[in-house]
């Protein structure tokens, strides 16, 4: 079971925190600080597994983390999860974020914290791994966003317009029209 998922930057500021077990608020912040403290001491060429956090409880738990540019993605798991599997899962999650936000960077995570939560909800649910297929996750997130926008009031209007244009399906223009022996090549138009 995954106990917690933490994303924080190189200075320890939290960008996303998700606990799958109840901890009081101060304890949550303490855990973030302790985890940051442990993880930031690590070199880049050591292994991605850490043990020894005392707050998040017990001997069964380890921290599996990956460092991407300015962000640390830390999953706190117990022994029922495969460690290498979780490493791959972090990769899947990051690639999904990349797809959903188009070249995701830290600012995206900062300003769209709720969207990141919704994406995470499609990957991990209740501390268990839900879906590992990136395309499936992205598709579901897209559908949900569409549903949100279809309801949206005034505030969603500008975003709606842009997404409406983006999603407009232009009819497919055949490039080669074969009429018997004559080959007419139609110049390719750039997509909208």
């Amino acid at each position, binding site marked *: 079971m995954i106990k917690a998922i933490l994303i924080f930057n190189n200075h320890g500021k939290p960008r996303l925190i998700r606990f799958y077990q109840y901890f009081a608020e101060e304890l949550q912040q303490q855990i973030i600080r302790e985890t940051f403290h442990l993880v930031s001491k690590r070199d880049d060429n050591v292994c991605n597994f850490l043990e020894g956090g005392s707050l998040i409880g017990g001997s069964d738990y380890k921290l599996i983390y990956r460092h991407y540019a300015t962000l640390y993605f830390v999953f706190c798991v117990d022994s029922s999860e495969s460690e290498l599997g979780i490493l791959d899962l972090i990769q899947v999650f990051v690639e999904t974020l990349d797809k959903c936000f188009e070249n995701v960077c830290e600012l995206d995570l900062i300003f769209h914290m709720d969207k990141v939560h919704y994406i995470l909800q499609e990957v991990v649910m209740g501390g268990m791994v839900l879906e590992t297929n990136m395309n499936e996750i992205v598709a579901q997130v897209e559908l949900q966003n569409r549903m*949100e926008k279809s309801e949206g009031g005034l505030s969603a209007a500008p975003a709606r317009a842009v997404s409406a244009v983006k999603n407009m399906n232009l009819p497919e223009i055949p490039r080669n029209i074969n009429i018997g022996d004559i080959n007419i090549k139609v110049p390719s138009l750039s997509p909208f």
Partner: protein
Amino acid sequence: MSPTVRLQEMIRVIRSARTQGEERGVIQRECAAIRAQFRQADNGGRSHNLAKLLYVHMLGYPAHFGQMECVRLIASPRYNEKRVGYLGAMMLLDENQDASLLITNSIKNDLAHSSQYVQSLALCTLACMGSAEMCRDLAPEIDRLLRASSSYIKKKATLCAVHIVRKVPELGELFTPAARALLAEKNHGVLHGAIILITELCERNTQTLVQFREAVPELVHIMRGLVTSGYSPEHTVAGISDPFLQVRILRLLRILGRNNDTASDAMNDLLAQVATNTDSSKTAGSAVLYETVLTVMDIKSESGLRVLAVNILGRFLLNNDRNIRYISMTSLQKIVMTDHNAVQRHRGTIVDCLKDQDASVKRRALELSLALVSAINIRSMMKELLLFLSTCPPELKSHAASGIFNAAERYAPSQRWHIDTILHVLTTAGGDVRDETVPNLIQLITNTSQLHCYTVHKLYRALVADISQQPLVQVACWCIGEYGDSLLRGECEETEPVQVTEDDILDALETVLQSHMSSPATRGFALTATMKLSTRITENVDRIRSIVSIYGSCIDVELQQRAVEYNALFKKYDHMRAAVLEKMPVMDRSSSGQTNGESGGGGVQELEPTKPKQPEVVVAPQPASQVCDLLDLLSGPDEPSLPGTTLGPASSMTGSAGGDLLDLLGGLELTPTLPTVPAAVTVYEKSGVCLKLSCERPLDASQTITLTATNASDHDITAFTLQAAVPKNVQLQMKAPSGDALPARSSASVTQTVLLHNPNKVSLKMRVRLSYISQGSTVQDTVQIDSFPSPGL
């Protein structure tokens, strides 16, 4: 800020705050605005407000006032608001809050909603924070969703079912048939969830486990499909087809195949196939391989397969990738108990990993090395471990130290080696060893009497070099106190002797006493050691007297008490000093272990005359770094016929002797010794009451004692009771007395039989307390019986 200002705007403002104080101010203003908005009637910006609140919550500010808003938003018909409401519920609510009960109904309605996204929100929230009651209420709904819905919902419903089973294990039976049916699904997400559910069910209930054993062929079939299938763009990660699902299935197979031959047989071929065909160059392949290895080792697999598995782990161990090395050590740890020899083959590599820079790898290597220590390799392993101890990271030091002690204790090839090892550990990692190390070590030292000389020389050297490591200093002080004479003699076969004078030794002890680095316990040790030396050395006794008297006015109460009592020893009881301070007897292993643990509670309790097994009083005092009574210092003299030293048996270790027992063990009470006469002996005589003791059937380990009480005074005595206490390891059984009234002028007597069982042949002593009512007032008195008229002593 207006309510419709979006989340991004607020975040921008917070980020532009330049100091922590400014940020706090901004956030407080925002929270106040949000709170005001929550109190108002419905406005369009509710979801934005909650989103802002959640952001603020992530930064660590209190957000509990948003809980009711979450409940309201969840009940809203709009998807936007529901979404944020559910997210808020998962972040802010948990089963301890009352508000969480209010959302049960909303969840129930949403589970039956027409839109699958609303259903999925409800499922997600239930799986994250569903309490036991909520789970019980909604379990039938979940079961329905498990059977008939889209695969998107099915997969979420299975994980929700796992959460329900964790919260309310009895509901597992409800989900078993649905889980079984889900194995036929094609969708990998649903299959993955189903495997997790089945794993959870099997782990909780053995009957379900037996049921699911029948599903092993089906699982094998699915797995084979995954392994042999070609490239599938959806699920392939680095050339492996859905490694996540493969790992899950392998784990489930492990649970099903454990201790079961038929299931294990069914899996053998598959496991061999996976082990040989999987490409382990990338992480995904390695994950599958190592899961396969663990499964092979856990089930009843054929020996060829086991060999293959251990070889795979060995290959992993030599891999350059640190992650793989870490994982292989974790796996080896799991199998080291069962396949010890196989793992021993890789000992060299593991020991090399102790020197790796990575702290996690070091930790794993330490655990594994400690597990691999055996009688054959103890010397070389210990060398490596001691080297490791001197360079290891501080968080591992105490674990390493205790591991080394355990290993040394189990496999020490010689006493001297053992003592050397312990001394080495104390000098390198002295601050991190556990408390019971000191008494254990002292006990070890007393037991190896031929090495006393050697030990004390080494310890003296260590003490002079460095007095900062408390356990080392404590042991050194104790040894110098005990064996100071061999130190002074200046000759030793085993090691280069140290040429010291008495002054040098006293200087060393005084340094410890005065140093600010010494803990109070250490000071206690040093003072006692100084005192003991007064009988071992000849010239500087005055110096010792002056040291001791200085500490008579020390602020530390413990030191002061000791010093005052030692002073008393010098002044009033000088004739006893030699006997009191003579060498300690060899300690019994079990007694040293027990006193530390149980004496706090059990050792000192009310004594009742009719209880068959009485709590015993410790006789042999133990040196310990705890608060010691005066009586601790005095070793119960071995020779019972020594006159005058009838100072009572020591109180229990912690000195927190219950009030009663402290009364029993009065200070330096001198009671008359008894001649060793086998007839009835008068042990107590006061104000007319006379207590006689006679021994019958003096067998080796057990004897019967009869206590007879008579009353020679002029007044009747009523409510006459006797209570008795004996040393540890002696069992006492008091039979019912013949009566409790002692009429005057010895016209009748009261007898009571006492059975003593002394299996360890410790020196037998008994302390008896009499209490009676005479002339309307209660009288209590105590008598110490040190020698019993019995040849079996």
